[in-house]
Protein backbone atom coordinates (compact mmCIF):
# COMPACT_ATOMS: atom_id res chain seq x y z
CA UNK A 1 0.00 0.00 0.00
CA UNK A 2 1.38 3.38 -0.94
CA UNK A 3 1.48 6.26 1.49
CA UNK A 4 -1.33 7.96 -0.38
CA UNK A 5 -3.49 4.86 -0.22
CA UNK A 6 -2.82 4.54 3.49
CA UNK A 7 -3.85 8.12 4.12
CA UNK A 8 -7.03 7.76 2.12
CA UNK A 9 -7.89 4.60 3.98
CA UNK A 10 -7.38 6.33 7.32
CA UNK A 11 -9.42 9.35 6.24
CA UNK A 12 -12.28 7.08 5.23
CA UNK A 13 -12.06 5.32 8.57
CA UNK A 14 -12.13 8.64 10.43
CA UNK A 15 -15.34 9.54 8.66
CA UNK A 16 -16.92 6.26 9.70
CA UNK A 17 -15.85 6.93 13.27
CA UNK A 18 -17.40 10.39 13.17
CA UNK A 19 -20.63 8.82 11.93
CA UNK A 20 -20.61 6.41 14.85
CA UNK A 21 -20.21 9.38 17.20
CA UNK A 22 -23.27 11.11 15.77
CA UNK A 23 -25.29 7.89 15.81
CA UNK A 24 -24.36 7.33 19.46
CA UNK A 25 -25.41 10.84 20.44
CA UNK A 26 -28.67 10.47 18.51
CA UNK A 27 -31.56 12.92 18.72
CA UNK A 28 -32.66 14.79 21.81
CA UNK A 29 -29.94 13.63 24.21
CA UNK A 30 -26.77 15.54 25.05
CA UNK A 31 -23.45 14.23 23.75
CA UNK A 32 -19.84 15.42 23.61
CA UNK A 33 -19.82 15.96 19.88
CA UNK A 34 -17.35 18.83 19.71
CA UNK A 35 -14.46 17.30 21.61
CA UNK A 36 -14.98 13.89 20.02
CA UNK A 37 -14.85 15.21 16.49
CA UNK A 38 -11.73 17.26 17.10
CA UNK A 39 -9.81 14.13 18.18
CA UNK A 40 -11.30 11.81 15.56
CA UNK A 41 -8.43 11.89 13.07
CA UNK A 42 -5.85 11.46 15.81
CA UNK A 43 -7.56 8.47 17.35
CA UNK A 44 -8.01 6.91 13.92
CA UNK A 45 -4.30 7.18 13.23
CA UNK A 46 -3.54 5.66 16.63
CA UNK A 47 -5.90 2.69 16.43
CA UNK A 48 -5.53 1.95 12.73
CA UNK A 49 -1.96 2.91 11.98
CA UNK A 50 0.35 3.42 14.89
CA UNK A 51 -0.57 1.29 17.87
CA UNK A 52 0.25 -2.35 18.27
CA UNK A 53 -2.84 -3.92 19.76
CA UNK A 54 -5.11 -6.94 19.35
CA UNK A 55 -8.88 -6.48 19.70
CA UNK A 56 -9.23 -10.22 20.15
CA UNK A 57 -6.66 -10.13 22.96
CA UNK A 58 -7.14 -6.78 24.67
CA UNK A 59 -4.74 -7.60 27.52
CA UNK A 60 -1.91 -8.80 25.32
CA UNK A 61 1.22 -7.82 27.24
CA UNK A 62 3.22 -6.54 24.31
CA UNK A 63 0.78 -3.82 23.31
CA UNK A 64 0.80 -0.05 23.04
CA UNK A 65 -1.62 1.62 25.38
CA UNK A 66 -4.00 4.48 24.77
CA UNK A 67 -5.57 6.77 27.35
CA UNK A 68 -8.21 9.38 26.72
CA UNK A 69 -7.39 11.87 29.44
CA UNK A 70 -10.15 14.11 28.13
CA UNK A 71 -12.56 11.34 29.07
CA UNK A 72 -15.73 13.20 28.13
CA UNK A 73 -14.91 12.25 24.51
CA UNK A 74 -15.49 8.63 25.51
CA UNK A 75 -17.93 8.01 22.68
CA UNK A 76 -15.10 8.70 20.26
CA UNK A 77 -13.02 5.96 21.81
CA UNK A 78 -15.99 3.59 21.79
CA UNK A 79 -16.34 4.23 18.06
CA UNK A 80 -12.66 3.40 17.53
CA UNK A 81 -12.90 0.28 19.70
CA UNK A 82 -16.00 -0.95 17.89
CA UNK A 83 -14.46 -0.32 14.49
CA UNK A 84 -11.36 -2.22 15.64
CA UNK A 85 -13.46 -5.18 16.78
CA UNK A 86 -13.16 -4.99 20.56
CA UNK A 87 -16.92 -5.47 20.77
CA UNK A 88 -19.81 -5.68 18.30
CA UNK A 89 -20.85 -2.41 16.68
CA UNK A 90 -24.41 -3.14 17.80
CA UNK A 91 -23.27 -2.22 21.33
CA UNK A 92 -22.78 1.40 20.34
CA UNK A 93 -26.47 2.19 20.38
CA UNK A 94 -26.57 1.14 24.05
CA UNK A 95 -24.15 3.81 25.19
CA UNK A 96 -25.15 5.31 28.57
CA UNK A 97 -28.14 3.01 28.91
CA UNK A 98 -28.64 1.40 32.31
CA UNK A 99 -26.47 -1.71 32.43
CA UNK A 100 -24.56 -0.87 29.26
CA UNK A 101 -20.91 -1.80 28.84
CA UNK A 102 -20.47 1.71 27.46
CA UNK A 103 -20.63 4.31 30.21
CA UNK A 104 -20.79 8.10 30.02
CA UNK A 105 -17.02 8.24 30.57
CA UNK A 106 -14.45 5.50 29.93
CA UNK A 107 -14.82 2.66 32.43
CA UNK A 108 -11.96 0.24 33.00
CA UNK A 109 -14.02 -2.65 34.29
CA UNK A 110 -17.03 -2.45 31.99
CA UNK A 111 -15.52 -1.90 28.54
CA UNK A 112 -12.99 -4.10 26.75
CA UNK A 113 -10.10 -2.03 25.42
CA UNK A 114 -10.33 0.78 27.98
CA UNK A 115 -6.96 0.91 29.74
CA UNK A 116 -8.04 3.01 32.75
CA UNK A 117 -11.02 4.98 33.98
CA UNK A 118 -10.95 8.67 33.10
CA UNK A 119 -13.48 11.47 33.29
CA UNK A 120 -12.13 13.64 36.06
CA UNK A 121 -9.87 15.84 33.98
CA UNK A 122 -6.15 16.18 34.35
CA UNK A 123 -5.43 12.65 35.52
CA UNK A 124 -4.84 10.62 32.36
CA UNK A 125 -1.34 11.89 31.72
CA UNK A 126 -0.28 10.74 35.20
CA UNK A 127 -1.83 7.33 34.64
CA UNK A 128 0.04 7.14 31.36
CA UNK A 129 3.24 8.07 33.13
CA UNK A 130 2.72 5.20 35.57
CA UNK A 131 2.17 2.79 32.68
CA UNK A 132 5.27 4.03 30.89
CA UNK A 133 7.35 3.59 34.05
CA UNK A 134 5.94 0.10 34.52
CA UNK A 135 6.84 -0.79 30.93
CA UNK A 136 10.37 0.36 31.55
CA UNK A 137 10.70 -1.76 34.70
CA UNK A 138 9.73 -4.84 32.72
CA UNK A 139 11.58 -3.85 29.58
CA UNK A 140 8.41 -3.76 27.52
CA UNK A 141 9.35 -1.92 24.36
CA UNK A 142 6.02 -0.26 23.76
CA UNK A 143 4.49 3.18 24.11
CA UNK A 144 1.71 4.95 25.93
CA UNK A 145 -0.37 7.50 24.00
CA UNK A 146 -2.48 10.02 25.88
CA UNK A 147 -4.86 12.57 24.38
CA UNK A 148 -5.27 15.67 26.53
CA UNK A 149 -7.38 18.75 25.91
CA UNK A 150 -6.34 22.39 25.91
CA UNK A 151 -9.08 23.28 28.39
CA UNK A 152 -7.85 20.36 30.46
CA UNK A 153 -4.44 22.01 30.56
CA UNK A 154 -5.76 24.25 33.32
CA UNK A 155 -5.67 21.26 35.68
CA UNK A 156 -2.56 21.48 37.83
CA UNK A 157 -2.06 17.75 37.82
CA UNK A 158 -1.27 17.89 34.08
CA UNK A 159 1.78 19.94 34.99
CA UNK A 160 2.73 17.64 37.84
CA UNK A 161 2.75 14.81 35.31
CA UNK A 162 4.64 16.95 32.81
CA UNK A 163 7.39 17.67 35.33
CA UNK A 164 7.56 14.08 36.47
CA UNK A 165 7.70 12.65 32.94
CA UNK A 166 10.60 14.91 32.08
CA UNK A 167 12.37 14.11 35.35
CA UNK A 168 12.06 10.41 34.69
CA UNK A 169 13.04 10.90 31.02
CA UNK A 170 10.04 8.87 29.97
CA UNK A 171 10.49 8.67 26.21
CA UNK A 172 7.84 5.99 25.78
CA UNK A 173 5.12 8.47 26.76
CA UNK A 174 3.53 10.37 23.89
CA UNK A 175 0.95 13.01 24.69
CA UNK A 176 -1.24 14.51 22.01
CA UNK A 177 -2.87 17.85 22.70
CA UNK A 178 -6.25 18.19 21.02
CA UNK A 179 -5.96 21.93 20.71
CA UNK A 180 -9.47 22.83 19.60
CA UNK A 181 -9.25 26.18 21.39
CA UNK A 182 -12.64 25.87 23.05
CA UNK A 183 -13.85 24.77 26.43
CA UNK A 184 -17.43 24.07 27.55
CA UNK A 185 -18.27 27.69 28.26
CA UNK A 186 -16.63 29.20 25.21
CA UNK A 187 -13.27 30.00 23.58
CA UNK A 188 -10.32 29.37 25.85
CA UNK A 189 -8.85 32.78 25.09
CA UNK A 190 -11.98 34.40 26.52
CA UNK A 191 -12.77 32.00 29.35
CA UNK A 192 -9.51 30.69 30.82
CA UNK A 193 -6.46 31.05 28.64
CA UNK A 194 -4.02 28.15 28.88
CA UNK A 195 -1.82 29.63 26.14
CA UNK A 196 0.96 29.84 25.15
CA UNK A 197 0.93 26.10 24.78
CA UNK A 198 4.15 25.19 22.98
CA UNK A 199 6.59 27.22 25.09
CA UNK A 200 5.05 25.73 28.24
CA UNK A 201 5.59 22.11 27.17
CA UNK A 202 9.09 22.90 25.93
CA UNK A 203 9.89 24.63 29.22
CA UNK A 204 8.73 21.51 31.05
CA UNK A 205 11.29 19.50 29.13
CA UNK A 206 9.14 17.81 26.50
CA UNK A 207 9.94 17.35 22.83
CA UNK A 208 7.21 19.26 21.08
CA UNK A 209 5.88 18.65 17.57
CA UNK A 210 3.18 20.93 16.17
CA UNK A 211 0.77 19.68 13.51
CA UNK A 212 -2.57 20.21 11.85
CA UNK A 213 -4.69 17.74 13.81
CA UNK A 214 -6.88 17.06 10.79
CA UNK A 215 -4.12 16.39 8.29
CA UNK A 216 -3.72 12.64 8.37
CA UNK A 217 -0.28 12.75 6.79
CA UNK A 218 1.00 15.20 9.40
CA UNK A 219 -0.46 13.04 12.15
CA UNK A 220 1.28 9.87 11.05
CA UNK A 221 4.56 11.67 10.39
CA UNK A 222 4.47 13.07 13.93
CA UNK A 223 3.64 9.69 15.45
CA UNK A 224 6.55 8.17 13.54
CA UNK A 225 8.87 10.98 14.63
CA UNK A 226 7.93 10.27 18.26
CA UNK A 227 9.45 6.80 17.90
CA UNK A 228 12.90 8.30 17.49
CA UNK A 229 13.00 10.73 20.38
CA UNK A 230 15.17 9.54 23.25
CA UNK A 231 15.38 10.78 26.81
CA UNK A 232 12.38 13.10 26.67
CA UNK A 233 8.63 12.61 26.67
CA UNK A 234 6.89 13.75 23.50
CA UNK A 235 4.05 16.23 23.11
CA UNK A 236 2.30 16.47 19.76
CA UNK A 237 0.37 19.72 19.69
CA UNK A 238 -2.44 19.08 17.23
CA UNK A 239 -4.25 22.19 16.07
CA UNK A 240 -7.84 21.09 15.65
CA UNK A 241 -11.36 22.32 15.20
CA UNK A 242 -13.94 21.45 17.82
CA UNK A 243 -16.77 19.64 16.07
CA UNK A 244 -14.71 19.08 12.93
CA UNK A 245 -16.65 17.50 10.09
CA UNK A 246 -20.05 18.90 10.98
CA UNK A 247 -20.61 22.40 9.65
CA UNK A 248 -22.88 23.71 12.41
CA UNK A 249 -20.78 22.19 15.19
CA UNK A 250 -17.39 23.46 14.05
CA UNK A 251 -15.90 25.94 16.54
CA UNK A 252 -19.20 26.02 18.39
CA UNK A 253 -18.91 25.63 22.16
CA UNK A 254 -22.60 24.76 22.33
CA UNK A 255 -21.67 21.34 20.99
CA UNK A 256 -19.19 20.62 23.78
CA UNK A 257 -22.07 18.62 25.24
CA UNK A 258 -24.78 19.41 22.76
CA UNK A 259 -28.21 18.14 21.80
CA UNK A 260 -29.11 17.40 18.18
CA UNK A 261 -32.55 18.00 16.78
CA UNK A 262 -33.84 15.48 14.23
CA UNK A 263 -32.88 17.94 11.50
CA UNK A 264 -29.41 18.55 12.81
CA UNK A 265 -28.89 14.81 13.25
CA UNK A 266 -29.81 14.09 9.66
CA UNK A 267 -27.75 17.02 8.45
CA UNK A 268 -24.71 15.78 10.33
CA UNK A 269 -24.97 12.27 8.92
CA UNK A 270 -25.44 13.69 5.45
CA UNK A 271 -22.24 15.72 5.76
CA UNK A 272 -20.38 12.61 6.93
CA UNK A 273 -21.51 10.48 4.02
CA UNK A 274 -18.80 8.89 1.92
Amino acid at each position, binding site marked *: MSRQELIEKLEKRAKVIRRHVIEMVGVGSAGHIGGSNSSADIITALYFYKMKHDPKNPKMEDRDRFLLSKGHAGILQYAALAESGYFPKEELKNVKKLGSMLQGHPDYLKTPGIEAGTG*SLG*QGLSIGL*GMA*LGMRLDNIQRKVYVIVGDGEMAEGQIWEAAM*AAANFKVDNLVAILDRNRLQATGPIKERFDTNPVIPKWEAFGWHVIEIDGHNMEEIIVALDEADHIKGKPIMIVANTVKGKGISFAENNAAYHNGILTQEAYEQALKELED
Partner: protein
Amino acid sequence: MEIKDQRQAYGKALVELGRENRNVVALEADLGKSTMSCFFQEEFPERYFEMGIAEQNMLSTAAGLSLMGKIPFVHSFAVFASGRAFDQIRQTIAIGKLNVKICGSSAGMSDFGDGATHQSVEDMAIMRAIPNMTVLCPIDAVETAKMVKAMAEHEGPVYIRLNRNAYDNVTKEEDPFEIGVPGLLKDGKDVVVFATGIMAVKALEAAKELEGKVSVKVVNVSTIKPLNEAMIVDLAKGIKAVVTAEEHSIIGGLGSAIAQALAKEEKIIEFVGMKDEFGCSAKNYAELLEHFGLTKEGIIQAIHNVIRNQ
Protein backbone atom coordinates in the same frame (compact mmCIF):
# COMPACT_ATOMS: atom_id res chain seq x y z
CA MET B 1 14.84 -6.47 69.00
CA GLU B 2 11.16 -5.68 69.27
CA ILE B 3 9.97 -2.77 67.17
CA LYS B 4 7.54 -0.44 68.93
CA ASP B 5 7.26 2.15 66.19
CA GLN B 6 4.58 1.57 63.54
CA ARG B 7 6.50 3.51 60.92
CA GLN B 8 9.64 1.44 61.45
CA ALA B 9 7.63 -1.77 61.42
CA TYR B 10 5.98 -0.64 58.21
CA GLY B 11 9.21 0.34 56.50
CA LYS B 12 10.86 -2.96 57.39
CA ALA B 13 7.85 -4.99 56.33
CA LEU B 14 7.74 -3.21 53.00
CA VAL B 15 11.34 -4.16 52.33
CA GLU B 16 10.60 -7.79 53.16
CA LEU B 17 7.67 -7.64 50.75
CA GLY B 18 9.93 -6.21 48.11
CA ARG B 19 12.31 -9.12 48.53
CA GLU B 20 9.52 -11.67 48.13
CA ASN B 21 7.76 -9.99 45.24
CA ARG B 22 9.61 -8.11 42.51
CA ASN B 23 6.37 -6.42 41.47
CA VAL B 24 6.13 -4.43 44.68
CA VAL B 25 7.12 -0.83 44.01
CA ALA B 26 7.01 2.28 46.18
CA LEU B 27 6.16 5.91 45.51
CA GLU B 28 6.91 8.88 47.69
CA ALA B 29 6.16 12.62 47.78
CA ASP B 30 9.28 13.87 49.57
CA LEU B 31 8.31 12.38 52.95
CA GLY B 32 10.30 9.16 52.65
CA LYS B 33 12.42 9.92 55.71
CA SER B 34 9.26 10.23 57.75
CA THR B 35 7.07 7.53 56.25
CA MET B 36 10.07 5.17 56.31
CA SER B 37 9.66 4.20 52.69
CA CYS B 38 13.31 5.24 52.57
CA PHE B 39 14.26 1.70 53.66
CA PHE B 40 12.69 0.43 50.44
CA GLN B 41 14.58 3.02 48.43
CA GLU B 42 17.91 1.88 49.90
CA GLU B 43 17.37 -1.70 48.87
CA PHE B 44 15.38 -1.28 45.66
CA PRO B 45 16.26 2.11 44.16
CA GLU B 46 15.05 1.10 40.70
CA ARG B 47 11.61 0.26 42.12
CA TYR B 48 11.31 3.45 44.10
CA PHE B 49 9.83 6.61 42.63
CA GLU B 50 10.37 10.00 44.20
CA MET B 51 7.41 11.86 42.75
CA GLY B 52 8.15 15.23 44.31
CA ILE B 53 5.66 17.19 46.36
CA ALA B 54 2.86 16.29 43.97
CA GLU B 55 0.45 13.90 45.63
CA GLN B 56 -2.21 13.86 42.96
CA ASN B 57 0.26 12.88 40.26
CA MET B 58 1.69 10.31 42.63
CA LEU B 59 -1.63 8.53 43.13
CA SER B 60 -2.58 8.50 39.45
CA THR B 61 0.92 7.33 38.53
CA ALA B 62 0.48 4.50 41.02
CA ALA B 63 -2.76 3.63 39.25
CA GLY B 64 -0.85 3.37 35.99
CA LEU B 65 1.82 1.19 37.58
CA SER B 66 -0.82 -1.12 39.00
CA LEU B 67 -2.28 -1.49 35.51
CA MET B 68 1.12 -2.81 34.45
CA GLY B 69 0.91 -5.55 37.07
CA LYS B 70 2.88 -3.76 39.75
CA ILE B 71 1.80 -3.51 43.38
CA PRO B 72 2.44 0.14 44.21
CA PHE B 73 2.67 1.31 47.81
CA VAL B 74 2.13 5.08 47.95
CA HIS B 75 3.14 7.25 50.89
CA SER B 76 2.35 10.56 52.45
CA PHE B 77 0.96 11.92 55.69
CA ALA B 78 -2.56 10.64 56.29
CA VAL B 79 -4.07 14.08 55.81
CA PHE B 80 -2.47 14.44 52.36
CA ALA B 81 -2.61 10.82 51.21
CA SER B 82 -6.35 10.71 51.81
CA GLY B 83 -7.34 14.32 51.34
CA ARG B 84 -5.15 15.91 48.76
CA ALA B 85 -5.40 13.02 46.35
CA PHE B 86 -8.97 12.00 47.17
CA ASP B 87 -10.30 12.45 43.68
CA GLN B 88 -7.41 10.54 42.14
CA ILE B 89 -8.04 7.68 44.55
CA ARG B 90 -11.75 7.66 43.86
CA GLN B 91 -11.93 8.17 40.14
CA THR B 92 -9.35 5.76 38.79
CA ILE B 93 -8.19 3.55 41.65
CA ALA B 94 -11.46 2.86 43.45
CA ILE B 95 -13.83 2.79 40.49
CA GLY B 96 -11.39 0.50 38.70
CA LYS B 97 -10.66 -1.60 41.82
CA LEU B 98 -6.97 -1.12 41.13
CA ASN B 99 -4.32 -2.76 43.26
CA VAL B 100 -2.90 0.38 44.85
CA LYS B 101 -1.89 0.45 48.52
CA ILE B 102 -2.05 3.84 50.22
CA CYS B 103 -0.08 4.54 53.38
CA GLY B 104 -1.38 7.48 55.42
CA SER B 105 1.47 8.05 57.83
CA SER B 106 1.46 10.24 60.95
CA ALA B 107 -2.30 9.92 61.26
CA GLY B 108 -4.57 11.38 63.91
CA MET B 109 -2.82 13.59 66.45
CA SER B 110 0.40 11.62 66.23
CA ASP B 111 2.21 14.45 64.44
CA PHE B 112 1.72 16.53 67.55
CA GLY B 113 4.05 19.40 66.68
CA ASP B 114 2.95 20.27 63.17
CA GLY B 115 -0.57 21.35 64.11
CA ALA B 116 -3.98 21.11 62.54
CA THR B 117 -2.93 21.06 58.89
CA HIS B 118 -0.93 17.87 59.47
CA GLN B 119 -3.30 16.10 61.86
CA SER B 120 -5.91 14.02 60.08
CA VAL B 121 -9.24 13.70 61.90
CA GLU B 122 -11.18 12.64 58.84
CA ASP B 123 -9.06 10.21 56.82
CA MET B 124 -10.91 7.09 57.93
CA ALA B 125 -14.26 8.75 57.27
CA ILE B 126 -13.47 9.78 53.74
CA MET B 127 -11.68 6.59 52.77
CA ARG B 128 -14.48 4.55 54.28
CA ALA B 129 -17.05 6.32 52.16
CA ILE B 130 -15.37 5.20 48.95
CA PRO B 131 -16.74 1.96 47.50
CA ASN B 132 -14.21 -0.86 46.96
CA MET B 133 -11.79 0.63 49.48
CA THR B 134 -10.35 -1.35 52.39
CA VAL B 135 -9.43 0.77 55.41
CA LEU B 136 -6.95 -0.45 58.03
CA CYS B 137 -5.80 0.99 61.35
CA PRO B 138 -3.22 -1.13 63.21
CA ILE B 139 -3.22 -1.30 66.99
CA ASP B 140 0.55 -1.49 67.31
CA ALA B 141 3.83 -2.09 65.49
CA VAL B 142 3.46 -5.88 65.66
CA GLU B 143 0.09 -5.75 63.91
CA THR B 144 1.41 -3.19 61.42
CA ALA B 145 3.95 -5.62 59.99
CA LYS B 146 1.26 -8.27 59.48
CA MET B 147 -1.00 -5.73 57.81
CA VAL B 148 1.61 -4.77 55.24
CA LYS B 149 1.86 -8.37 54.16
CA ALA B 150 -1.92 -8.76 54.11
CA MET B 151 -2.27 -5.59 52.04
CA ALA B 152 -0.08 -7.00 49.30
CA GLU B 153 -1.99 -10.28 49.28
CA HIS B 154 -5.33 -8.49 49.08
CA GLU B 155 -6.62 -7.74 45.58
CA GLY B 156 -7.79 -4.17 45.32
CA PRO B 157 -7.26 -0.73 46.84
CA VAL B 158 -6.23 -0.49 50.49
CA TYR B 159 -5.70 2.50 52.78
CA ILE B 160 -3.72 2.14 56.02
CA ARG B 161 -3.22 4.84 58.64
CA LEU B 162 -0.11 4.75 60.83
CA ASN B 163 0.81 6.31 64.13
CA ARG B 164 3.94 8.46 64.14
CA ASN B 165 5.05 7.55 67.66
CA ALA B 166 6.47 4.50 69.39
CA TYR B 167 4.55 2.78 72.18
CA ASP B 168 4.48 -0.67 73.75
CA ASN B 169 2.95 -3.46 71.73
CA VAL B 170 -0.13 -5.19 73.10
CA THR B 171 -0.47 -7.88 70.46
CA LYS B 172 1.94 -10.74 69.95
CA GLU B 173 3.80 -12.10 66.96
CA GLU B 174 1.83 -15.34 67.11
CA ASP B 175 -1.60 -13.61 67.18
CA PRO B 176 -3.30 -14.25 63.84
CA PHE B 177 -4.24 -11.33 61.63
CA GLU B 178 -6.76 -11.34 58.85
CA ILE B 179 -8.22 -8.33 57.09
CA GLY B 180 -11.81 -7.89 58.22
CA VAL B 181 -11.57 -9.83 61.47
CA PRO B 182 -11.83 -7.80 64.69
CA GLY B 183 -9.68 -9.02 67.57
CA LEU B 184 -11.02 -9.76 71.03
CA LEU B 185 -8.37 -8.31 73.32
CA LYS B 186 -10.21 -8.89 76.58
CA ASP B 187 -13.54 -10.49 77.41
CA GLY B 188 -16.16 -8.81 79.61
CA LYS B 189 -19.89 -8.55 80.19
CA ASP B 190 -20.90 -5.10 81.43
CA VAL B 191 -19.74 -2.93 78.56
CA VAL B 192 -18.00 -3.53 75.22
CA VAL B 193 -15.43 -1.09 73.90
CA PHE B 194 -14.78 -1.16 70.16
CA ALA B 195 -11.55 0.73 69.58
CA THR B 196 -8.87 1.17 66.96
CA GLY B 197 -5.22 2.16 66.85
CA ILE B 198 -3.66 3.64 69.96
CA MET B 199 -7.14 4.09 71.45
CA ALA B 200 -7.50 0.30 71.55
CA VAL B 201 -4.37 0.22 73.69
CA LYS B 202 -5.88 2.85 75.98
CA ALA B 203 -9.14 0.91 76.07
CA LEU B 204 -7.23 -2.10 77.38
CA GLU B 205 -5.64 0.11 80.04
CA ALA B 206 -9.08 1.43 80.99
CA ALA B 207 -10.46 -2.12 81.23
CA LYS B 208 -7.59 -3.19 83.47
CA GLU B 209 -8.08 -0.23 85.77
CA LEU B 210 -11.82 -1.01 86.10
CA GLU B 211 -11.23 -4.67 86.94
CA GLY B 212 -13.33 -5.65 89.90
CA LYS B 213 -15.70 -2.72 89.39
CA VAL B 214 -16.86 -2.97 85.75
CA SER B 215 -16.38 -5.96 83.48
CA VAL B 216 -15.13 -4.42 80.24
CA LYS B 217 -14.85 -6.27 76.96
CA VAL B 218 -12.28 -4.75 74.61
CA VAL B 219 -12.31 -5.35 70.86
CA ASN B 220 -9.56 -4.22 68.50
CA VAL B 221 -11.24 -3.17 65.28
CA SER B 222 -8.25 -2.81 63.02
CA THR B 223 -10.22 -3.21 59.81
CA ILE B 224 -12.53 -0.22 59.63
CA LYS B 225 -13.77 -1.28 56.23
CA PRO B 226 -15.03 -3.81 55.37
CA LEU B 227 -16.58 -4.04 58.81
CA ASN B 228 -17.88 -7.51 59.54
CA GLU B 229 -21.21 -6.38 60.95
CA ALA B 230 -22.29 -9.87 61.94
CA MET B 231 -19.14 -10.26 64.03
CA ILE B 232 -19.66 -6.84 65.63
CA VAL B 233 -23.25 -7.71 66.54
CA ASP B 234 -22.04 -11.01 67.94
CA LEU B 235 -19.28 -9.39 69.98
CA ALA B 236 -21.85 -7.00 71.50
CA LYS B 237 -24.38 -9.75 72.20
CA GLY B 238 -25.92 -9.54 75.65
CA ILE B 239 -24.27 -6.19 76.36
CA LYS B 240 -26.31 -3.02 76.09
CA ALA B 241 -23.56 -0.52 76.88
CA VAL B 242 -21.18 0.22 74.02
CA VAL B 243 -18.24 2.60 73.76
CA THR B 244 -16.22 3.34 70.63
CA ALA B 245 -12.78 4.96 70.69
CA GLU B 246 -10.61 6.32 67.87
CA GLU B 247 -7.93 8.92 67.27
CA HIS B 248 -10.18 10.48 64.67
CA SER B 249 -13.36 12.49 64.46
CA ILE B 250 -16.44 10.85 65.95
CA ILE B 251 -18.03 11.67 62.60
CA GLY B 252 -17.69 9.02 59.93
CA GLY B 253 -14.97 6.81 61.37
CA LEU B 254 -15.03 3.77 63.62
CA GLY B 255 -17.80 5.12 65.85
CA SER B 256 -20.12 5.66 62.91
CA ALA B 257 -19.30 2.27 61.46
CA ILE B 258 -20.03 0.51 64.77
CA ALA B 259 -23.24 2.49 65.28
CA GLN B 260 -24.40 1.45 61.82
CA ALA B 261 -23.56 -2.17 62.51
CA LEU B 262 -25.52 -2.10 65.78
CA ALA B 263 -28.40 0.01 64.47
CA LYS B 264 -30.92 -2.82 64.72
CA GLU B 265 -29.79 -3.79 68.23
CA GLU B 266 -30.83 -2.15 71.47
CA LYS B 267 -27.65 -0.42 72.54
CA ILE B 268 -26.54 2.78 74.16
CA ILE B 269 -23.40 4.00 72.49
CA GLU B 270 -20.85 6.58 73.65
CA PHE B 271 -18.27 7.85 71.17
CA VAL B 272 -14.72 8.71 72.21
CA GLY B 273 -12.80 10.65 69.61
CA MET B 274 -12.21 14.14 68.27
CA LYS B 275 -15.47 16.01 68.79
CA ASP B 276 -15.78 17.50 65.31
CA GLU B 277 -12.78 19.73 65.80
CA PHE B 278 -9.30 20.10 64.35
CA GLY B 279 -6.12 19.35 66.21
CA CYS B 280 -3.45 21.83 67.24
CA SER B 281 0.22 21.93 68.14
CA ALA B 282 1.68 20.53 71.34
CA LYS B 283 5.19 19.81 72.59
CA ASN B 284 4.46 16.17 73.21
CA TYR B 285 1.98 13.52 72.13
CA ALA B 286 0.60 12.65 75.57
CA GLU B 287 -0.25 16.27 76.28
CA LEU B 288 -2.14 16.59 72.99
CA LEU B 289 -4.10 13.38 73.48
CA GLU B 290 -5.02 14.50 76.96
CA HIS B 291 -6.13 17.89 75.66
CA PHE B 292 -8.65 16.17 73.40
CA GLY B 293 -9.72 13.51 75.86
CA LEU B 294 -8.14 10.71 73.84
CA THR B 295 -7.02 8.93 76.99
CA LYS B 296 -7.60 5.98 79.30
CA GLU B 297 -9.50 8.40 81.56
CA GLY B 298 -11.63 9.55 78.64
CA ILE B 299 -12.62 5.98 77.91
CA ILE B 300 -13.33 5.28 81.59
CA GLN B 301 -15.58 8.34 81.68
CA ALA B 302 -17.39 7.13 78.57
CA ILE B 303 -17.83 3.69 80.15
CA HIS B 304 -19.37 5.24 83.27
CA ASN B 305 -21.63 7.45 81.12
CA VAL B 306 -22.94 4.64 79.04
CA ILE B 307 -23.55 2.33 81.97
CA ARG B 308 -25.39 5.09 83.78
CA ASN B 309 -27.56 5.81 80.72
CA GLN B 310 -28.44 2.29 79.69
